[in-house]
Protein backbone atom coordinates (compact mmCIF):
# COMPACT_ATOMS: atom_id res chain seq x y z
CA UNK A 1 0.00 0.00 0.00
CA UNK A 2 1.16 3.54 -0.79
CA UNK A 3 4.38 2.84 -2.62
CA UNK A 4 3.42 5.76 -4.85
CA UNK A 5 5.70 8.78 -4.84
CA UNK A 6 2.82 11.00 -5.95
CA UNK A 7 -0.69 11.42 -4.70
CA UNK A 8 -2.64 10.61 -7.82
CA UNK A 9 -5.74 8.76 -8.88
CA UNK A 10 -3.78 5.49 -8.96
CA UNK A 11 -3.07 5.94 -5.28
CA UNK A 12 -6.74 6.55 -4.52
CA UNK A 13 -7.71 3.48 -6.56
CA UNK A 14 -5.23 1.43 -4.55
CA UNK A 15 -6.62 2.80 -1.29
CA UNK A 16 -10.17 2.08 -2.42
CA UNK A 17 -9.24 -1.53 -3.12
CA UNK A 18 -7.61 -1.86 0.31
CA UNK A 19 -10.74 -0.51 1.97
CA UNK A 20 -13.18 -2.63 -0.03
CA UNK A 21 -11.23 -5.84 0.56
CA UNK A 22 -11.31 -5.03 4.28
CA UNK A 23 -15.15 -5.10 4.18
CA UNK A 24 -15.47 -1.33 4.45
CA UNK A 25 -18.34 -1.24 1.95
CA UNK A 26 -18.76 0.81 -1.20
CA UNK A 27 -20.53 3.84 0.28
CA UNK A 28 -18.36 4.10 3.39
CA UNK A 29 -15.21 3.71 1.28
CA UNK A 30 -16.38 6.65 -0.84
CA UNK A 31 -17.07 8.70 2.29
CA UNK A 32 -13.67 7.83 3.73
CA UNK A 33 -11.82 8.72 0.54
CA UNK A 34 -13.74 11.99 0.26
CA UNK A 35 -12.78 12.88 3.83
CA UNK A 36 -9.21 11.88 2.96
CA UNK A 37 -9.12 14.14 -0.06
CA UNK A 38 -10.25 17.02 2.17
CA UNK A 39 -7.51 16.27 4.68
CA UNK A 40 -4.91 15.99 1.91
CA UNK A 41 -6.02 19.30 0.46
CA UNK A 42 -5.61 20.99 3.86
CA UNK A 43 -2.26 19.27 4.33
CA UNK A 44 -0.99 20.36 0.92
CA UNK A 45 -1.84 23.92 1.91
CA UNK A 46 0.92 23.34 4.44
CA UNK A 47 2.92 21.46 1.76
CA UNK A 48 2.69 18.40 3.89
CA UNK A 49 1.02 16.20 1.32
CA UNK A 50 3.45 13.49 0.24
CA UNK A 51 2.13 9.96 -0.25
CA UNK A 52 3.64 8.62 2.95
CA UNK A 53 1.53 11.08 4.90
CA UNK A 54 -1.61 10.08 3.02
CA UNK A 55 -1.54 6.74 4.79
CA UNK A 56 -1.32 8.44 8.17
CA UNK A 57 -4.15 10.78 7.21
CA UNK A 58 -6.26 7.82 6.11
CA UNK A 59 -5.65 6.23 9.50
CA UNK A 60 -6.91 9.45 11.09
CA UNK A 61 -10.08 9.47 9.00
CA UNK A 62 -10.87 5.89 10.00
CA UNK A 63 -10.07 6.40 13.67
CA UNK A 64 -12.25 9.51 13.74
CA UNK A 65 -15.18 7.63 12.22
CA UNK A 66 -14.84 4.95 14.87
CA UNK A 67 -14.78 7.32 17.81
CA UNK A 68 -18.38 8.45 18.02
CA UNK A 69 -19.54 10.82 20.72
CA UNK A 70 -20.96 7.82 22.54
CA UNK A 71 -17.43 6.65 23.21
CA UNK A 72 -16.57 9.74 25.23
CA UNK A 73 -18.03 8.05 28.28
CA UNK A 74 -16.78 4.70 29.47
CA UNK A 75 -19.03 1.79 30.25
CA UNK A 76 -21.96 2.68 32.48
CA UNK A 77 -21.27 0.27 35.34
CA UNK A 78 -21.79 2.36 38.46
CA UNK A 79 -25.05 0.69 39.48
CA UNK A 80 -24.89 -2.13 41.96
CA UNK A 81 -25.40 -4.61 40.50
CA UNK A 82 -24.59 -3.24 37.07
CA UNK A 83 -26.23 -5.35 34.39
CA UNK A 84 -24.73 -6.14 31.01
CA UNK A 85 -26.93 -7.88 28.45
CA UNK A 86 -24.98 -9.57 25.63
CA UNK A 87 -26.69 -9.99 22.27
CA UNK A 88 -25.90 -10.86 18.67
CA UNK A 89 -26.46 -13.24 15.80
CA UNK A 90 -25.75 -16.96 15.94
CA UNK A 91 -22.16 -17.96 16.48
CA UNK A 92 -20.75 -14.42 16.66
CA UNK A 93 -18.88 -15.11 19.91
CA UNK A 94 -21.24 -13.96 22.68
CA UNK A 95 -20.75 -16.74 25.23
CA UNK A 96 -16.96 -16.72 24.86
CA UNK A 97 -16.93 -12.91 25.06
CA UNK A 98 -18.89 -13.08 28.31
CA UNK A 99 -16.23 -15.38 29.77
CA UNK A 100 -13.57 -12.85 28.74
CA UNK A 101 -15.53 -9.90 30.14
CA UNK A 102 -16.13 -11.75 33.40
CA UNK A 103 -12.40 -12.46 33.61
CA UNK A 104 -11.51 -8.83 33.02
CA UNK A 105 -13.97 -7.45 35.57
CA UNK A 106 -12.99 -10.09 38.07
CA UNK A 107 -9.38 -8.98 37.67
CA UNK A 108 -10.58 -5.41 38.20
CA UNK A 109 -11.80 -6.54 41.61
CA UNK A 110 -15.53 -6.85 40.89
CA UNK A 111 -17.78 -9.63 42.11
CA UNK A 112 -19.37 -11.06 38.98
CA UNK A 113 -22.46 -13.24 38.45
CA UNK A 114 -23.33 -14.86 35.13
CA UNK A 115 -26.76 -15.78 33.76
CA UNK A 116 -27.29 -18.53 31.19
CA UNK A 117 -29.98 -16.76 29.20
CA UNK A 118 -29.66 -19.04 26.16
CA UNK A 119 -32.28 -21.63 26.98
CA UNK A 120 -32.73 -22.73 23.40
CA UNK A 121 -29.55 -24.06 21.86
CA UNK A 122 -28.17 -27.49 22.72
CA UNK A 123 -25.70 -27.32 25.63
CA UNK A 124 -25.71 -23.50 25.71
CA UNK A 125 -26.08 -23.26 29.48
CA UNK A 126 -23.55 -26.07 29.94
CA UNK A 127 -21.07 -24.06 27.87
CA UNK A 128 -21.49 -20.98 30.08
CA UNK A 129 -21.43 -23.08 33.26
CA UNK A 130 -18.08 -24.56 32.20
CA UNK A 131 -16.71 -21.08 31.79
CA UNK A 132 -18.15 -20.19 35.20
CA UNK A 133 -16.29 -23.15 36.71
CA UNK A 134 -13.01 -22.10 35.08
CA UNK A 135 -13.46 -18.57 36.40
CA UNK A 136 -14.74 -19.64 39.81
CA UNK A 137 -17.93 -17.68 39.22
CA UNK A 138 -21.53 -18.72 39.87
CA UNK A 139 -23.86 -19.12 36.91
CA UNK A 140 -27.65 -18.76 37.22
CA UNK A 141 -29.37 -21.16 34.87
CA UNK A 142 -32.66 -23.01 34.50
CA UNK A 143 -33.64 -26.08 32.50
CA UNK A 144 -33.64 -26.22 28.73
CA UNK A 145 -36.66 -24.49 27.25
CA UNK A 146 -37.08 -22.13 30.20
CA UNK A 147 -38.23 -18.59 29.44
CA UNK A 148 -35.07 -16.50 28.97
CA UNK A 149 -36.82 -13.50 30.54
CA UNK A 150 -37.47 -15.62 33.64
CA UNK A 151 -33.78 -16.55 33.82
CA UNK A 152 -32.80 -12.90 33.48
CA UNK A 153 -35.26 -11.89 36.20
CA UNK A 154 -34.08 -14.60 38.59
CA UNK A 155 -30.48 -13.68 37.91
CA UNK A 156 -31.01 -10.00 38.71
CA UNK A 157 -32.88 -10.90 41.87
CA UNK A 158 -30.01 -13.21 42.86
CA UNK A 159 -27.47 -10.52 41.98
CA UNK A 160 -29.19 -8.04 44.27
CA UNK A 161 -29.61 -10.60 47.06
CA UNK A 162 -25.95 -11.61 46.88
CA UNK A 163 -24.66 -8.05 46.59
CA UNK A 164 -22.59 -8.69 43.46
CA UNK A 165 -21.16 -5.78 41.52
CA UNK A 166 -21.87 -7.01 38.03
CA UNK A 167 -24.33 -9.34 36.32
CA UNK A 168 -23.63 -10.45 32.76
CA UNK A 169 -26.54 -12.08 30.93
CA UNK A 170 -25.97 -14.40 27.98
CA UNK A 171 -28.66 -14.67 25.33
CA UNK A 172 -29.29 -17.08 22.47
CA UNK A 173 -27.92 -16.19 19.08
CA UNK A 174 -30.64 -14.89 16.79
CA UNK A 175 -30.85 -13.50 13.30
CA UNK A 176 -32.13 -9.92 13.36
CA UNK A 177 -34.70 -10.57 10.65
CA UNK A 178 -36.59 -12.97 12.90
CA UNK A 179 -39.23 -10.73 14.44
CA UNK A 180 -40.37 -13.17 17.12
CA UNK A 181 -36.80 -13.73 18.35
CA UNK A 182 -36.14 -10.00 18.45
CA UNK A 183 -39.36 -9.57 20.43
CA UNK A 184 -38.05 -12.14 22.92
CA UNK A 185 -35.02 -9.91 23.40
CA UNK A 186 -37.05 -6.77 24.08
CA UNK A 187 -39.11 -8.78 26.58
CA UNK A 188 -35.91 -9.60 28.49
CA UNK A 189 -35.21 -5.85 28.70
CA UNK A 190 -38.72 -5.06 29.94
CA UNK A 191 -38.61 -7.79 32.58
CA UNK A 192 -35.27 -6.52 33.95
CA UNK A 193 -36.80 -3.08 34.33
CA UNK A 194 -39.29 -4.48 36.83
CA UNK A 195 -36.35 -4.87 39.21
CA UNK A 196 -34.26 -1.89 38.12
CA UNK A 197 -35.62 0.84 35.84
CA UNK A 198 -32.14 1.44 34.42
CA UNK A 199 -31.34 -2.19 33.69
CA UNK A 200 -29.75 -3.38 31.54
CA UNK A 201 -27.16 -0.65 32.02
CA UNK A 202 -25.20 -1.85 29.02
CA UNK A 203 -26.36 -3.87 26.02
CA UNK A 204 -23.30 -5.15 24.17
CA UNK A 205 -23.70 -6.40 20.62
CA UNK A 206 -21.08 -8.98 19.72
CA UNK A 207 -20.14 -8.81 16.04
CA UNK A 208 -18.12 -11.40 14.15
CA UNK A 209 -15.22 -9.68 12.34
CA UNK A 210 -15.74 -12.08 9.40
CA UNK A 211 -19.14 -10.57 8.65
CA UNK A 212 -19.67 -8.54 5.48
CA UNK A 213 -22.08 -5.70 4.83
CA UNK A 214 -24.91 -7.45 6.65
CA UNK A 215 -23.24 -6.31 9.87
CA UNK A 216 -24.72 -2.85 9.43
CA UNK A 217 -28.27 -4.13 9.17
CA UNK A 218 -27.67 -6.47 12.12
CA UNK A 219 -26.53 -3.59 14.28
CA UNK A 220 -29.36 -1.34 13.13
CA UNK A 221 -32.07 -3.83 14.06
CA UNK A 222 -30.47 -4.89 17.34
CA UNK A 223 -30.08 -1.24 18.26
CA UNK A 224 -33.71 -0.44 17.44
CA UNK A 225 -35.14 -3.38 19.29
CA UNK A 226 -32.82 -4.07 22.19
CA UNK A 227 -31.21 -0.67 22.72
CA UNK A 228 -27.59 -1.59 22.04
CA UNK A 229 -25.14 0.69 23.89
CA UNK A 230 -21.83 -0.74 22.75
CA UNK A 231 -20.08 -3.19 20.45
CA UNK A 232 -17.58 -6.00 20.80
CA UNK A 233 -15.84 -7.17 17.64
CA UNK A 234 -14.83 -10.81 18.03
CA UNK A 235 -12.46 -12.98 16.00
CA UNK A 236 -10.09 -10.17 15.03
CA UNK A 237 -7.25 -12.66 15.51
CA UNK A 238 -8.23 -14.10 12.13
CA UNK A 239 -7.44 -12.44 8.80
CA UNK A 240 -10.77 -10.62 8.43
CA UNK A 241 -10.36 -6.89 9.06
CA UNK A 242 -13.88 -6.10 10.25
CA UNK A 243 -14.14 -2.99 8.08
CA UNK A 244 -17.93 -3.06 8.19
CA UNK A 245 -17.65 -2.00 11.84
CA UNK A 246 -16.61 1.45 10.64
CA UNK A 247 -20.03 1.93 9.05
CA UNK A 248 -21.73 0.63 12.18
CA UNK A 249 -19.89 3.10 14.44
CA UNK A 250 -20.33 5.97 12.06
CA UNK A 251 -23.98 5.48 11.07
CA UNK A 252 -25.34 4.35 14.42
CA UNK A 253 -23.11 6.33 16.77
CA UNK A 254 -22.13 3.19 18.66
CA UNK A 255 -18.75 2.75 20.34
CA UNK A 256 -16.62 -0.37 20.06
CA UNK A 257 -15.69 -1.25 23.64
CA UNK A 258 -13.62 -4.39 23.21
CA UNK A 259 -12.19 -6.68 20.58
CA UNK A 260 -11.90 -10.47 20.78
CA UNK A 261 -8.52 -11.90 19.81
CA UNK A 262 -8.90 -15.59 20.46
CA UNK A 263 -10.74 -18.37 22.24
CA UNK A 264 -9.20 -18.10 25.71
CA UNK A 265 -10.47 -16.05 28.61
CA UNK A 266 -7.64 -13.53 28.36
CA UNK A 267 -8.13 -12.90 24.63
CA UNK A 268 -9.90 -9.56 25.01
CA UNK A 269 -8.49 -6.08 24.41
CA UNK A 270 -9.89 -2.62 25.00
CA UNK A 271 -10.73 -1.04 21.67
CA UNK A 272 -8.12 1.30 20.21
CA UNK A 273 -9.30 3.05 17.03
CA UNK A 274 -5.79 3.98 15.87
CA UNK A 275 -4.58 0.41 16.25
CA UNK A 276 -7.68 -0.85 14.45
CA UNK A 277 -7.07 1.54 11.55
CA UNK A 278 -3.40 0.52 11.34
CA UNK A 279 -4.25 -3.19 11.14
CA UNK A 280 -7.02 -2.56 8.65
CA UNK A 281 -4.71 -0.71 6.26
CA UNK A 282 -2.13 -3.44 6.67
Amino acid at each position, binding site marked *: LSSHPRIDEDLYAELE*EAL*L*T*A*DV*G*VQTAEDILQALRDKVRRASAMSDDNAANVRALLGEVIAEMMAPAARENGLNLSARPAVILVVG*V*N*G*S*GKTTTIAKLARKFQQDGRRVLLAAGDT*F*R*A*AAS*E*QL*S*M*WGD*RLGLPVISQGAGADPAAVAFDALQAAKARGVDLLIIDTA*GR*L*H*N*KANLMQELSKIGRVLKKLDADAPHEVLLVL*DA*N*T*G*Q*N*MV*QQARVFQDISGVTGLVVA*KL*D*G*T*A*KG*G*AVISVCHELNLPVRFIGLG*EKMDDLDEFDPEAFARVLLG
Partner: protein
Amino acid sequence: QLTQGFENFFRHLRGHGKLTEDNIRESLREVRRILLEADVNFKVVKQFIQNVQEKALGQEVLRSITPGQLVIKIIHDELVALLGEGVSRLDLSSLPPVPVMVVGLQGSGKTTFIAKLGLHLRRKGKFPLLVAGDVYRPAAIDQLQQLGRQLDLPVWAPGVQDPVDICRDGMAEARRTGRDVVLLDTAGRLHIDEPMMQELARIREALKPPEILYVADGMAGQDAVRAAQEFQQRLDFSGIVLTKLDGDAKGGAALSIRAVTGKPIRFIGTGEKTDALEEFHPDRMANRILG
Protein backbone atom coordinates in the same frame (compact mmCIF):
# COMPACT_ATOMS: atom_id res chain seq x y z
CA GLN B 1 -32.37 -1.27 0.25
CA LEU B 2 -30.00 -3.42 -1.79
CA THR B 3 -32.86 -5.25 -3.46
CA GLN B 4 -34.37 -1.94 -4.46
CA GLY B 5 -31.07 -0.90 -5.99
CA PHE B 6 -30.92 -3.97 -8.18
CA GLU B 7 -34.59 -3.88 -9.11
CA ASN B 8 -34.39 -0.23 -10.09
CA PHE B 9 -31.19 -0.81 -11.95
CA PHE B 10 -32.57 -3.71 -13.93
CA ARG B 11 -35.86 -1.95 -14.58
CA HIS B 12 -33.95 1.05 -15.94
CA LEU B 13 -31.75 -1.20 -18.05
CA ARG B 14 -34.68 -3.18 -19.37
CA GLY B 15 -36.54 -0.07 -20.46
CA HIS B 16 -33.53 1.35 -22.21
CA GLY B 17 -33.45 1.71 -25.97
CA LYS B 18 -30.29 0.97 -27.90
CA LEU B 19 -27.17 0.82 -25.75
CA THR B 20 -23.87 2.41 -26.58
CA GLU B 21 -20.58 1.03 -25.35
CA ASP B 22 -20.58 3.78 -22.74
CA ASN B 23 -24.07 2.82 -21.55
CA ILE B 24 -22.86 -0.74 -21.10
CA ARG B 25 -19.74 0.24 -19.22
CA GLU B 26 -21.84 2.47 -16.96
CA SER B 27 -24.27 -0.37 -16.31
CA LEU B 28 -21.43 -2.68 -15.42
CA ARG B 29 -20.04 -0.16 -12.96
CA GLU B 30 -23.41 -0.32 -11.25
CA VAL B 31 -23.34 -4.14 -11.30
CA ARG B 32 -19.88 -4.00 -9.74
CA ARG B 33 -21.23 -1.86 -6.92
CA ILE B 34 -24.18 -4.18 -6.38
CA LEU B 35 -21.99 -7.29 -6.23
CA LEU B 36 -19.53 -5.68 -3.81
CA GLU B 37 -22.39 -4.61 -1.57
CA ALA B 38 -23.59 -8.22 -1.74
CA ASP B 39 -20.22 -9.30 -0.28
CA VAL B 40 -18.85 -10.85 -3.45
CA ASN B 41 -15.05 -10.84 -3.25
CA PHE B 42 -13.30 -7.88 -4.89
CA LYS B 43 -11.17 -9.97 -7.26
CA VAL B 44 -14.07 -12.25 -8.12
CA VAL B 45 -16.17 -9.20 -8.99
CA LYS B 46 -13.39 -7.85 -11.18
CA GLN B 47 -13.15 -11.12 -13.12
CA PHE B 48 -16.92 -11.46 -13.32
CA ILE B 49 -17.38 -7.95 -14.74
CA GLN B 50 -14.62 -8.62 -17.28
CA ASN B 51 -16.33 -11.80 -18.45
CA VAL B 52 -19.71 -10.11 -18.67
CA GLN B 53 -18.24 -7.08 -20.39
CA GLU B 54 -16.68 -9.20 -23.15
CA LYS B 55 -20.08 -10.67 -23.91
CA ALA B 56 -22.04 -7.47 -23.34
CA LEU B 57 -19.90 -5.36 -25.66
CA GLY B 58 -20.51 -7.78 -28.48
CA GLN B 59 -22.34 -6.84 -31.67
CA GLU B 60 -25.39 -8.87 -30.70
CA VAL B 61 -26.09 -6.56 -27.78
CA LEU B 62 -25.15 -3.33 -29.53
CA ARG B 63 -27.42 -4.13 -32.46
CA SER B 64 -30.33 -5.41 -30.39
CA ILE B 65 -33.49 -3.38 -29.91
CA THR B 66 -33.84 -4.79 -26.40
CA PRO B 67 -30.19 -4.69 -25.39
CA GLY B 68 -30.95 -4.11 -21.73
CA GLN B 69 -32.79 -7.40 -21.62
CA LEU B 70 -29.81 -9.14 -23.21
CA VAL B 71 -27.33 -7.64 -20.77
CA ILE B 72 -29.47 -8.74 -17.83
CA LYS B 73 -29.62 -12.25 -19.25
CA ILE B 74 -25.84 -12.29 -19.71
CA ILE B 75 -25.32 -11.20 -16.09
CA HIS B 76 -27.81 -13.71 -14.73
CA ASP B 77 -26.50 -16.61 -16.83
CA GLU B 78 -22.88 -15.81 -15.99
CA LEU B 79 -23.78 -15.82 -12.29
CA VAL B 80 -25.64 -19.13 -12.48
CA ALA B 81 -22.81 -20.74 -14.48
CA LEU B 82 -20.31 -19.59 -11.88
CA LEU B 83 -22.39 -20.92 -8.99
CA GLY B 84 -22.38 -24.44 -10.35
CA GLU B 85 -24.47 -26.74 -12.48
CA GLY B 86 -27.48 -27.75 -10.46
CA VAL B 87 -27.88 -29.93 -7.41
CA SER B 88 -24.75 -31.83 -6.40
CA ARG B 89 -24.97 -34.94 -4.26
CA LEU B 90 -22.68 -36.34 -1.59
CA ASP B 91 -20.53 -39.19 -2.79
CA LEU B 92 -21.28 -42.00 -0.35
CA SER B 93 -20.56 -44.80 -2.81
CA SER B 94 -17.40 -46.14 -1.22
CA LEU B 95 -17.35 -49.19 1.04
CA PRO B 96 -19.20 -48.43 4.30
CA PRO B 97 -18.69 -46.97 6.77
CA VAL B 98 -18.06 -43.81 4.75
CA PRO B 99 -16.44 -40.96 6.68
CA VAL B 100 -17.61 -37.38 6.03
CA MET B 101 -15.41 -34.74 7.61
CA VAL B 102 -16.85 -31.32 8.49
CA VAL B 103 -14.50 -28.35 8.85
CA GLY B 104 -14.50 -24.55 8.97
CA LEU B 105 -13.93 -21.36 10.94
CA GLN B 106 -15.27 -20.86 14.46
CA GLY B 107 -19.02 -20.53 14.82
CA SER B 108 -19.82 -21.17 11.13
CA GLY B 109 -22.45 -23.82 12.00
CA LYS B 110 -20.59 -27.15 11.68
CA THR B 111 -22.02 -28.96 14.71
CA THR B 112 -25.57 -27.95 13.88
CA PHE B 113 -25.00 -28.94 10.23
CA ILE B 114 -23.81 -32.39 11.27
CA ALA B 115 -27.02 -32.96 13.20
CA LYS B 116 -29.01 -31.76 10.20
CA LEU B 117 -27.05 -33.95 7.80
CA GLY B 118 -27.48 -36.95 10.08
CA LEU B 119 -31.24 -36.48 10.05
CA HIS B 120 -31.25 -35.93 6.27
CA LEU B 121 -29.25 -39.11 5.65
CA ARG B 122 -31.37 -41.22 7.96
CA ARG B 123 -34.47 -40.08 6.10
CA LYS B 124 -32.74 -41.34 2.98
CA GLY B 125 -32.25 -44.76 4.51
CA LYS B 126 -28.72 -44.39 5.86
CA PHE B 127 -27.47 -45.22 9.36
CA PRO B 128 -25.30 -42.29 10.39
CA LEU B 129 -22.97 -42.15 13.37
CA LEU B 130 -22.04 -38.70 14.66
CA VAL B 131 -18.51 -38.35 16.04
CA ALA B 132 -17.71 -35.62 18.56
CA GLY B 133 -14.25 -34.53 17.44
CA ASP B 134 -14.21 -31.08 19.09
CA VAL B 135 -12.32 -31.50 22.35
CA TYR B 136 -11.57 -27.81 22.78
CA ARG B 137 -14.76 -25.79 22.97
CA PRO B 138 -16.50 -26.03 26.34
CA ALA B 139 -19.51 -28.36 26.10
CA ALA B 140 -19.00 -29.00 22.36
CA ILE B 141 -19.26 -32.74 22.93
CA ASP B 142 -22.30 -32.14 25.12
CA GLN B 143 -23.84 -30.11 22.30
CA LEU B 144 -23.49 -32.93 19.76
CA GLN B 145 -24.70 -35.51 22.28
CA GLN B 146 -27.81 -33.46 23.00
CA LEU B 147 -28.50 -33.05 19.30
CA GLY B 148 -28.02 -36.79 18.85
CA ARG B 149 -30.52 -37.50 21.61
CA GLN B 150 -33.04 -35.07 20.08
CA LEU B 151 -32.77 -36.87 16.75
CA ASP B 152 -32.29 -40.36 18.13
CA LEU B 153 -28.94 -40.63 16.34
CA PRO B 154 -25.92 -42.27 17.97
CA VAL B 155 -23.05 -39.99 18.97
CA TRP B 156 -19.56 -41.34 19.56
CA ALA B 157 -17.57 -39.52 22.24
CA PRO B 158 -14.90 -41.88 23.59
CA GLY B 159 -13.54 -39.48 26.17
CA VAL B 160 -10.00 -39.42 24.80
CA GLN B 161 -8.11 -36.23 24.07
CA ASP B 162 -6.77 -36.58 20.52
CA PRO B 163 -9.27 -35.79 17.73
CA VAL B 164 -7.36 -38.07 15.33
CA ASP B 165 -7.82 -40.99 17.73
CA ILE B 166 -11.47 -40.03 18.25
CA CYS B 167 -12.15 -40.09 14.52
CA ARG B 168 -10.32 -43.41 14.00
CA ASP B 169 -12.16 -44.83 16.94
CA GLY B 170 -15.43 -43.54 15.52
CA MET B 171 -14.82 -45.53 12.34
CA ALA B 172 -14.21 -48.68 14.41
CA GLU B 173 -17.41 -48.03 16.34
CA ALA B 174 -19.32 -47.64 13.06
CA ARG B 175 -18.02 -51.01 11.88
CA ARG B 176 -18.95 -52.62 15.19
CA THR B 177 -22.50 -51.27 15.13
CA GLY B 178 -23.28 -51.43 11.41
CA ARG B 179 -23.42 -47.65 10.84
CA ASP B 180 -22.73 -46.83 7.20
CA VAL B 181 -21.93 -43.10 7.29
CA VAL B 182 -19.71 -41.43 9.88
CA LEU B 183 -20.09 -37.65 10.32
CA LEU B 184 -16.98 -36.19 11.93
CA ASP B 185 -17.42 -32.94 13.85
CA THR B 186 -14.24 -30.92 14.26
CA ALA B 187 -13.46 -27.81 16.27
CA GLY B 188 -13.73 -24.46 14.56
CA ARG B 189 -10.28 -23.11 13.79
CA LEU B 190 -8.46 -20.31 12.01
CA HIS B 191 -6.89 -21.11 8.64
CA ILE B 192 -3.74 -19.41 9.98
CA ASP B 193 -3.51 -21.65 13.03
CA GLU B 194 -0.76 -24.00 11.90
CA PRO B 195 -1.04 -26.77 14.53
CA MET B 196 -4.83 -26.86 14.20
CA MET B 197 -4.68 -27.05 10.40
CA GLN B 198 -2.15 -29.86 10.72
CA GLU B 199 -4.57 -31.68 13.00
CA LEU B 200 -7.14 -31.66 10.20
CA ALA B 201 -4.51 -32.93 7.76
CA ARG B 202 -3.77 -35.79 10.16
CA ILE B 203 -7.44 -36.73 10.44
CA ARG B 204 -7.71 -36.70 6.68
CA GLU B 205 -4.57 -38.80 6.35
CA ALA B 206 -5.86 -41.36 8.83
CA LEU B 207 -9.37 -41.74 7.43
CA LYS B 208 -9.14 -40.63 3.79
CA PRO B 209 -12.73 -39.30 3.81
CA PRO B 210 -14.28 -39.19 0.32
CA GLU B 211 -16.24 -36.14 1.44
CA ILE B 212 -14.75 -33.18 3.31
CA LEU B 213 -17.29 -30.39 3.67
CA TYR B 214 -16.19 -26.81 4.26
CA VAL B 215 -18.87 -25.01 6.27
CA ALA B 216 -18.99 -21.25 5.75
CA ASP B 217 -21.20 -18.60 7.29
CA GLY B 218 -23.59 -17.16 4.71
CA MET B 219 -23.02 -13.62 6.02
CA ALA B 220 -19.24 -13.78 5.55
CA GLY B 221 -17.53 -10.87 3.82
CA GLN B 222 -14.45 -10.30 1.69
CA ASP B 223 -12.14 -12.52 3.72
CA ALA B 224 -14.25 -15.63 3.16
CA VAL B 225 -12.15 -16.47 0.14
CA ARG B 226 -8.88 -16.39 2.02
CA ALA B 227 -9.96 -18.91 4.63
CA ALA B 228 -11.60 -21.14 2.03
CA GLN B 229 -8.48 -21.16 -0.10
CA GLU B 230 -6.27 -22.09 2.82
CA PHE B 231 -8.60 -24.94 3.82
CA GLN B 232 -8.66 -26.09 0.23
CA GLN B 233 -4.89 -26.07 -0.08
CA ARG B 234 -4.52 -28.13 3.07
CA LEU B 235 -7.42 -30.52 2.67
CA ASP B 236 -8.68 -30.29 -0.91
CA PHE B 237 -12.23 -30.38 0.50
CA SER B 238 -14.90 -31.85 -1.75
CA GLY B 239 -17.81 -29.54 -1.11
CA ILE B 240 -19.08 -26.36 0.49
CA VAL B 241 -21.96 -25.77 2.90
CA LEU B 242 -23.33 -22.27 3.44
CA THR B 243 -25.19 -21.64 6.67
CA LYS B 244 -27.53 -19.03 8.15
CA LEU B 245 -29.08 -18.22 4.79
CA ASP B 246 -32.35 -17.67 6.64
CA GLY B 247 -30.81 -14.30 7.49
CA ASP B 248 -31.00 -11.32 5.14
CA ALA B 249 -27.36 -11.30 4.06
CA LYS B 250 -27.08 -11.38 0.28
CA GLY B 251 -24.69 -14.32 0.48
CA GLY B 252 -22.09 -13.12 -2.01
CA ALA B 253 -19.55 -15.25 -0.16
CA ALA B 254 -21.22 -18.22 -1.85
CA LEU B 255 -20.17 -16.91 -5.23
CA SER B 256 -16.70 -15.98 -4.03
CA ILE B 257 -15.88 -19.30 -2.39
CA ARG B 258 -17.28 -21.25 -5.30
CA ALA B 259 -15.48 -19.13 -7.92
CA VAL B 260 -12.13 -19.33 -6.18
CA THR B 261 -12.14 -22.99 -5.08
CA GLY B 262 -14.20 -24.44 -7.92
CA LYS B 263 -15.84 -26.79 -5.42
CA PRO B 264 -19.58 -27.50 -5.50
CA ILE B 265 -21.96 -26.07 -2.93
CA ARG B 266 -23.61 -29.16 -1.49
CA PHE B 267 -26.09 -27.81 1.06
CA ILE B 268 -27.37 -24.63 2.62
CA GLY B 269 -28.49 -24.09 6.20
CA THR B 270 -31.74 -22.18 6.52
CA GLY B 271 -32.47 -22.19 10.24
CA GLU B 272 -31.47 -23.27 13.72
CA LYS B 273 -33.69 -26.35 13.81
CA THR B 274 -32.38 -29.70 12.69
CA ASP B 275 -34.69 -29.94 9.68
CA ALA B 276 -33.46 -26.60 8.27
CA LEU B 277 -31.20 -28.06 5.60
CA GLU B 278 -31.70 -27.63 1.87
CA GLU B 279 -29.88 -28.67 -1.25
CA PHE B 280 -28.22 -25.83 -3.11
CA HIS B 281 -29.90 -24.36 -6.20
CA PRO B 282 -27.63 -22.03 -8.20
CA ASP B 283 -30.45 -20.11 -9.86
CA ARG B 284 -32.07 -19.32 -6.51
CA MET B 285 -28.73 -18.12 -5.15
CA ALA B 286 -28.18 -15.95 -8.23
CA ASN B 287 -31.56 -14.33 -7.67
CA ARG B 288 -30.72 -13.77 -4.02
CA ILE B 289 -27.37 -12.12 -4.77
CA LEU B 290 -28.91 -9.98 -7.50
CA GLY B 291 -31.81 -9.10 -5.24
